[in-house]
């Protein structure tokens, strides 16, 4: 007979997964312990994880190649099971960090030089306008200075 400490540890783990139904908890613990009297905590938990893995795969129909950690991730994925495109949602979640093959636009600082200046061609100063505007301000300044 397994110790009460072990049973309590298993119960806590089942409850942590969100199961509150005592019958479900008891059945799960029973199927993990299999009347094994000298089972260690380590072994019991291994069996429990195997059980969770097989239940999850049966339930979610996801392959182990893409979802090697399904025993841990299934609790999250179950929330999306009701959607018709569940497979695609699961894969998208799993594939969060893929740049979809087109990433890597690395930003490399460019040296600051004169080459870019030519591109600002539309902003070249027009000499005639400079002359007249400068002349205008000179006249205006002079008038102000004269009258003050």
């Amino acid at each position, binding site marked *: 007979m397994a110790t009460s*400490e072990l049973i309590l*540890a298993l119960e806590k*783990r089942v409850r*942590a*997964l*969100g199961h509150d139904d005592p019958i479900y908890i008891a059945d799960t613990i029973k199927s993990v312990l299999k009347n094994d009297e000298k089972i260690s*905590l*380590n072994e019991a*938990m291994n069996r429990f994880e195997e059980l969770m893995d097989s239940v999850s795969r049966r339930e979610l129909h996801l392959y182990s190649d893409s979802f090697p*950690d399904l025993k*841990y*991730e*299934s*609790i*999250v994925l179950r*929330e*999306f099971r009701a*959607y018709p495109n569940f497979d*695609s*949602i699961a894969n*998208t*979640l799993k594939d*969060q*960090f893929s*740049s*979809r093959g*087109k*990433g*890597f*636009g*690395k*930003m490399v*600082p*460019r*040296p*600051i*030089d*004169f*080459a*870019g*200046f030519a*591109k*600002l061609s*539309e*902003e*070249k*100063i*027009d000499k*005639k*306008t*400079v002359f007249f*505007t*400068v002349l*205008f*301000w000179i006249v*205006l*300044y002079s008038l*102000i*200075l004269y009258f*003050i």
Partner: protein
Amino acid sequence: MRKIEFNTYTFRLFTFWGFVNLLSGYGTLIYFEFLSFRQFDWIDGLLLFTFSFLFLHLSYGASIALFGFIQYFKGGDPYRCKIDVNDLRSISLETVPVAVVIPIFNENTLEVYERISKMFSAIKLSKEGNSFDFFILSDSNQIHVWIEEELEYINLIKETQGWGRIFYRRRKSNTNGKSGNISDFCRRYGKNYRYMIVLDADSFMTPENMILISKKMEAEPTVGILQTNPQIYKSNTKFQKIFELSQKLYSEYYLTGASYWQMNSSSFWGHNAIIRLEPFIDHCALPKLPKLGALGGKILSHDTIEAALIRRAGYSVQFTTDLAGSFEEYPPTWIESLKRDQRWCQGNLQHFWFLGARELNFQSKISILLGIFSYLSSMLWLLFIILSLILYLDDLRFFRLAFNSKEFEIIFKQFYLGKAIQLQSITLSLLFAPKILAFAIEFIHPIRISNSRFKLAKFFIQETFLSFLMAPTNMFMYVQFVIYTLLGKKVIWRHQNRESATSIPLKTAIENFKLPFFSGVLLSIFLYRIEFQLFLWISPIWLSWLLSPFLAMLTSSNIKTPELALRKKRKEISPRNALKLVLTDPYIFGIHLFMIRERLLEKEKSKDSLRKLCEKLLKVGPKALSNKEILRILYSKSSLLFFHDLFWKTYPKDRDSYWNETYPVI
């Protein structure tokens, strides 16, 4: 948008800056006459030099407002970046991928996600935004914030059905802050998108706005960055409300005036803007600055420089005031606003290096210079006040010795004070005339602020009085920021509760404003004892310093209860229980596994050391590990799996008591 021709470009630059110089030249001339009333010595020279810069800055502010008013009365700048729904109707965004990126750093997760949820849901409904993807780019380094972000992300995508369209990514190390975060996005996902709409954590943009600016970018292939004018929203405190209304009342004139001379090199504020990604990736990587204490190394404030760099690449930076659906929050209190200013201060001062980069264009450099000067001018202002005090006392002694009391009265009041009053009048006109004009326009045609005319007048008086009272304290604080930045130090702020429904306690306000407060006390006593007239003349300065804590406290009070986030928390995550939850709670652990990238190149040696850390963490508890070590565990998939496994395969008596705690209350 009409193409800017050579003559227009030159004409605008010379007209605008000619006018600025005319104004500042005139003020400086009057001041010179005032100073030359008696002998012109070195103090006078220094004063005139300081004054000329300050008055130039003041003239610039008044001129942009004036040019803005002229454009307003003309019916708008013909060269402005005009966004017209009808013009853009034919443009399709079906095949135009747009990324909406939201860099976040230890923010209020529920609030940020609520905004994202609203924006995404609306854009999904719009039918034109099918090519828009959202990226939450987290740099949060507090474990409980990070875990909450992940947990709520799953809620968010479930609620909005946003899988494959809303992405969450947290960087392992937040190198180069926000600009590094954006750069990291560009490196990983940039090539998948043509445009990137950058939002701050507190930004909100309507889908119509996002669609229109994207269409505008499609229509104008030479535009590199298009900046919108975000309106301040969600104002809960008096401080926020005042700035919200003043922005509504004045900002359009100032921004239109600035666009008049900036033309293709308008302002970029780093958020609520759309960026053409290809040239941005190719040309806008920020160079590392030469080493020079706090002014060298990594660039802290990136927006102005990125705008200058994309301009250098031949693309324009445009600014639009045509759209009303762009929003941002304003700091809730004066203290929070100053904290932000401190960050900007160091960032802006660093930009001086770029003034020497010869290939950046004139407008970009002037924008950089203005950014630097907005903080540096405080130093000049303080210097100017100190020198003026010395000169005034010196002059007073001279007059009293040189003339008998009757002559002194006549000469001092008629000539000396006459010039001083003339100068004061010009300065005050430049400061207040734009505000009065904006107020008058709104009073006659109320369109910006939908309040009654009485309320508008009340607000105008309040705002003018407050800004008058706050300016000398801001100067004081900016001087402190500049000095601290140059010394490589940081001003330490006392903690305050940002989400508190009540105002800042007086004790906290005094702690934060103790320097200006005690300086105000000392200055007022000093001036009262040496010269009563001076005591009165300088009263706006010492009164502002003296009243600063009270002003901070009064303006922080709530005018309405802050809106509570509608989203419900899945689990209460606190700094205390976050680590336990992420490593042991199967649901949160499962989510975290999805969010951690598999590191195939993780070395066996590193895995071994992490395993040892995990064992220590379980036996001795989090206190045995440094924050860095804990972050290492949380970022390694192999160690996460190892710990989770170890936790469940260890009896509670063999673990540290931390792991057996029931979820502690925050």
